[in-house]
């Protein structure tokens, strides 16, 4: 992975996004995008850089917002960070671009209440069918 070329392409393609690239352990670069540009950015990463390996999607309820981290890897790590409002956490699905995102989106949906628009199979993955106590990783759920 050529991190510099990728960052340059992201700056060109999404000039109004914060980006603010940082390095974090272990050999990982993290950039911040707006939710609307997350999917177009991934599309660009796939078509221009052949970056297709999505390790996983981490969802975090920070108290102020729902943060989603998309962890990509190709000899080095690249994480795309985006934040969604807690009352209405929705973002476009990646499953048509990367079928391997299916389980990760389902898990973020059931654990944090995120809606992945366009995902055709958002049934519960790990929680029982009769779960009625709210998304377990949300701060207000005990």
């Amino acid at each position: 992975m050529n991190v510099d070329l990728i960052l340059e392409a992201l700056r060109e393609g999404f000039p109004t996004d914060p980006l603010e690239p940082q390095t974090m352990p272990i050999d990982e670069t993290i950039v911040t995008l707006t939710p609307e540009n997350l999917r177009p950015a991934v599309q660009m990463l796939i078509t221009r850089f052949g970056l297709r390996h999505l390790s996983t999607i981490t969802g975090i309820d920070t108290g102020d917002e729902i943060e989603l981290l998309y962890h990509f890897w190709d000899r080095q790590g690249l994480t795309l960070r985006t934040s969604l409002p807690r009352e209405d956490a929705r973002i476009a699905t990646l499953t048509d671009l990367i079928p391997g995102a299916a389980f990760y989106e389902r898990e973020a949906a059931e654990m944090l209440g995120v809606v992945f628009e366009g995902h055709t199979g958002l049934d519960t993955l790990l929680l029982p069918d009769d779960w009625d106590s709210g998304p377990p990783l949300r701060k207000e759920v005990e």
Partner: protein
Amino acid sequence: MSRITIPIGPQHPALKEPISFLLTVEGERIVESALRIGYVHRGLERIFQDRNYVQNVHVVERVCGICSHVHTTTYCQGVEALLGLEVPPRALYIRTLLCEMERIHSHLLWLGVLAEHIGFTTLFMYTWRDREIVLDVMEELSGGRVAHAVNIIGGVRIDLDRDHAHSILARLDELERQIEVFVRIVQHERTFQARTRGVGHLSAEQVRRYCVVGPVARASGVDVDLRRDAPYAVYDRLKFRAIIAQEGDVWARTMVRSMETIESLEMCRQLLTELPEGPLAVRAPRRVPPGEVVSRCEAPRGELVYYIRSDGSDRPARVKVRTPTLTTLMTLPDQLRDVNTADVPTVLSGVDLCIACADR
């Protein structure tokens, strides 16, 4: 021909762990399948937030019994990175030694399970008997056969002297002779090949689409091995090959895992003979300064990822675990399509599922 739906699981002789399938069949051929996981979902990511970093080492080890050491390795590695600790070389060698011994154990266990599922009970008995050699070594080193509690944040808590290292090397030689017998069987035994060749095929493109990792990916020609491509612990100091096959079926996966076992044995030899002197651990503070880390290791089933966020307290704000089995689970509907019902146990065994890992 009309279609029938057959439910399998969560308790079923063909399945080692609770998972359920709905297979839609036309005659003997599967046309569609759906799977349901979550029977082993213990809510670990939430539990991690209610424990401190030290307690979590104990919990992380119990995400999965078979790959317990690599879970603690990935977790401790991440926390050590957040703390900016430099783990002493001797500790890293010992940590890597257990990683490779665990890989040998996991692959031998898997080969036995596959053999049992295709009716080759003799091979099951032989592989499980010989994996006792590995379990004995791990028990002598750590006190535990299956859960070893070797890793601590900052290093390891076990040691071995020169005599012990020699004794282990002798037993590794004995084990290698046995494994070579198994490799010959897998390569040449015609009934084994008849049951596994062409079954459960995945192309390299399917592997990339589902972001599959580990031996299943390597058996379809995708050349990725984190130990070589993003070395952690002391893998940058070891000589080894990543084993790749092209056929993409259960037979190819068997070849990959068998040859990987031989490579791991050789790596254990290097680790034991080159073990440097020095301390076993550095002191780790209880509170971790705010930060985030993505820690990756090559578990026996592939890329294991831990994302940890710290907030300055003695408890993690978030621990996200992605286990390699999740990736292979996503390929199962593709793998099971057009397969005969008699081959279902073979396909399921071929991917080496670890449902405890997947469900967490």
